[in-house]
């Protein structure tokens, strides 16, 4: 069975407000980067707050961080690096016009993203069992004698929850795009959509690469 080497050429359909396809592709990349940088600044503020908390309340943060599931965090990092690899595979195959293989790589990427969320959900469940959710009024907080630890734990949920939301959005967009990309003629007209989405996916990976050491590793 072939990899789906397409009967059709790979390309981008020129829209009216661009002079050339190259200009259109560069504008799309630049626009995506402009948005990604706003996202970077958003997450940077959260990570910086975590570092400041670590400096101001070292004992409380270390005590709270001992309850984080270090090995699940590490496993999730491996999962996201794997998903970045499959996303790169989808991009490479889209450039070759191998539509069927590209679609399979996209599905693998969505599956790995989902696995990340499942592991993260299990981590939250374990935190719930250990009474490590200080924002729940009906459930006594495990470290109630350490008020500054609440700040760190709440920040942990905001940062990882926001990352999870981005990942969930990414998986949804990816599945819709996979459905579109499996249709005949997609790569002839919209190949660069795969490239642009790839930037977003790699960026989600990049944010987790920063979140893991900031929240889990540095505070041990």
């Amino acid at each position, binding site marked *: 069975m072939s990899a789906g080497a397409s009967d059709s050429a790979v390309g981008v359909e020129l829209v009216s407000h661009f002079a050339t396809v190259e200009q259109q592709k560069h504008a799309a990349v*630049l626009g995506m980067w402009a948005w990604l940088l706003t996202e970077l600044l958003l997450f*940077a503020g959260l990570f910086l707050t975590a*570092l400041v908390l670590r400096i101001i309340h070292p004992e409380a943060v270390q005590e709270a961080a001992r309850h984080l599931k270090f090995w699940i965090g590490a496993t999730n990092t491996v999962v996201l690096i794997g998903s970045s690899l499959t996303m790169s595979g989808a991009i490479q195959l889209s450039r070759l016009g191998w539509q069927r293989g590209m679609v399979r790589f996209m599905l693998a990427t969505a599956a790995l993203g989902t696995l990340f969320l499942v592991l993260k959900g299990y981590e939250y469940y374990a935190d719930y069992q250990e009474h490590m959710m200080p924002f729940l009024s009906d459930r006594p907080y495990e470290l109630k004698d350490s008020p500054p630890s609440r700040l760190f734990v709440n920040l942990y949920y905001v940062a990882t929850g926001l990352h999870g939301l981005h990942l969930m959005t990414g998986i949804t967009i990816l599945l819709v795009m996979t459905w579109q990309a499996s249709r005949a003629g997609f790569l002839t007209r919209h190949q660069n959509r795969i490239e642009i989405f790839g930037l977003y996916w790699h960026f989600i990976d990049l944010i987790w690469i920063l979140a893991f050491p900031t929240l889990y590793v540095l505070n041990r």
Partner: protein
Amino acid sequence: MFGTHDERRILWRHMREPVLTAGALLAMLGINVALGATLPFPHVWIVELIVAGAMVVTILLFSMEVRHDPPLVKLFACIGFFWVGILFTMTLVDYLSRG
């Protein structure tokens, strides 16, 4: 999926860089996880931050292919991280220099 010898050869030629990138990222993650799990020396966090920084640069240059982008995109990416650098430096200088 990739039946013929030629297809596998073409696939490997295109996937070599992503595979090597993922391998490098996993190796650096292994270093950080080992350091985090064993805490072998004081101030190990400096090494952990350097390794995390190297992972970010690897993703930017190889996974996000910034090195192949036009100069304007490179400038955008650099300025974004430069802003984050200013934010971190000025804030941490304040907190770290308090008595």
